[in-house]
């Protein structure tokens, strides 16, 4: 499978028992885009991230990664996906270096050099051999972001990536995401905070009650458009 240029959801629904988390969402996102999945808490953003990450299977509809589907090319697709979830996917008992080396090996990458580069990227080289348990939320978040990007994924999925970051760290993460998109990655960013997403996302998809209620280029007026959609209820 060659690297995919776009990811497409077609009429995707997902139910958990009787609860409808996502309902008939159709959406396509291209490389170079930073798609903001916006919506209030419980709108279905995290489920959509889970669906795109292949961790959640759709109840109906289909998701294709440049023509391939998880049922036929699961491992190949997962190799090209990086996820930074709200929970950080780090082992707190291990050191920063041990965490990075473990995941690097899991992706078949050279452990030491990959971990060194990621530690530098997270600005944590001097804390490399400290347990993650003792890190602040911001340090963990930076480490988790680098962990999710170790294998240079084509599709980068981020669920509330700015949680716990100070203004400087928010700026650094935003710059990193812009660079990723510039280098050809597909970036999907789920957040309920438009103030942080504003100026970063190139397109916004607004989700409410599991439904996609707006899909438009981001730019001037994005904030106003989002707020009016939220107020409309």
């Amino acid at each position, binding site marked *: 499978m060659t690297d995919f240029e776009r990811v497409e959801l077609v009429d995707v629904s997902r139910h958990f028992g009787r609860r409808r988390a996502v309902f008939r969402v159709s959406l396509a996102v291209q490389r170079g885009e930073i798609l903001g999945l916006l919506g209030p808490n419980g709108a279905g953003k995290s489920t959509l991230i889970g669906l795109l990450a292949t961790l959640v299977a759709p109840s109906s509809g289909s998701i294709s990664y440049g023509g391939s589907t998880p049922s036929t090319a699961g491992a190949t697709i997962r190799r090209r996906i990086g996820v930074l979830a709200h929970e950080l996917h780090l*082992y707190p008992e291990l050191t920063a270096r041990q965490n990075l080396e473990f995941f690097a090996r*899991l992706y078949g990458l050279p452990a030491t050099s990959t971990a060194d580069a990621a530690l530098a990227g997270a600005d944590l080289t001097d804390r490399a051999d400290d347990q993650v348990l003792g890190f602040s939320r911001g340090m963990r978040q930076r480490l988790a972001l680098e962990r999710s990007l170790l294998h240079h994924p084509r599709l980068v999925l981020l669920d509330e990536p700015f949680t716990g970051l100070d203004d400087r760290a928010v700026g650094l993460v935003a710059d990193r995401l812009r660079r990723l998109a510039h280098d050809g990655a597909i970036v999907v960013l789920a957040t309920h905070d438009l103030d942080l997403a504003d100026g970063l996302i190139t397109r916004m998809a607004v989700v409410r009650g599991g439904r996609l209620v707006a899909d438009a280029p981001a730019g001037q007026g994005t904030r106003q458009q989002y707020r009016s959609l939220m107020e409309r209820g």
Partner: protein
Amino acid sequence: MFVRTALLVLKKDFAIELRSYEVLSTTLFFAVSCVAIFSFAFVREGQAPKDAAAGILWIAIAFAGTLALGRTFERERYGETLKALLLAPAPRPAIYVGKLLGILALLFTTEALIVPMVAFFFHARFFDQSLYLLALLSLGTIGYAAVGTLFAAMLVRARTRDVLLPILLYPVTIPVIIAGVRGTAALLESPADLPIASLWIAMLAFFDVVFVTLSLWMFEPLMTE
């Protein structure tokens, strides 16, 4: 790729355990307490009831195993690291095998401590037929852990996982426990009933093949929400 991933997961679990010995110490403490309490209850004036040793040994293994399974997967729940493992491009059943190997290592260590304890307190002549005992313990532990690892992984996201794990696990693994108890009891007969012990060993081998095959087959669909 499969073996490499399984060993990576196992090595990672060891590295975490070596930081705190939390799961090992709680499992050993629980198993030893279990055997000690049974010995206080059943051994009178140095005499233990016939056949009690086999049952107590397997009860201690099953209970300690449940504790080990719960604690091991609790670590994967914090930070949702199990999801990170599932996101890796590795074959997902390899992750199951890695976790299973870690649980087996824990249980075999526990058994290395409690088998001599049960033998001592209950005057059980386990070591007269060491190879048979080794076969019974190994195969019984593999069968129990194979199902336990699958269920513990499946229940990681459940709020009531601590209650649900034994409720699901014990009914399914009852054949393994019964085969283990009856096989061990046959070894403790005087003289040891080796044909019957062999029969139970063969039964355990059969359960292992079924349980491990089913678990490998079901792990990926069960782990996809």
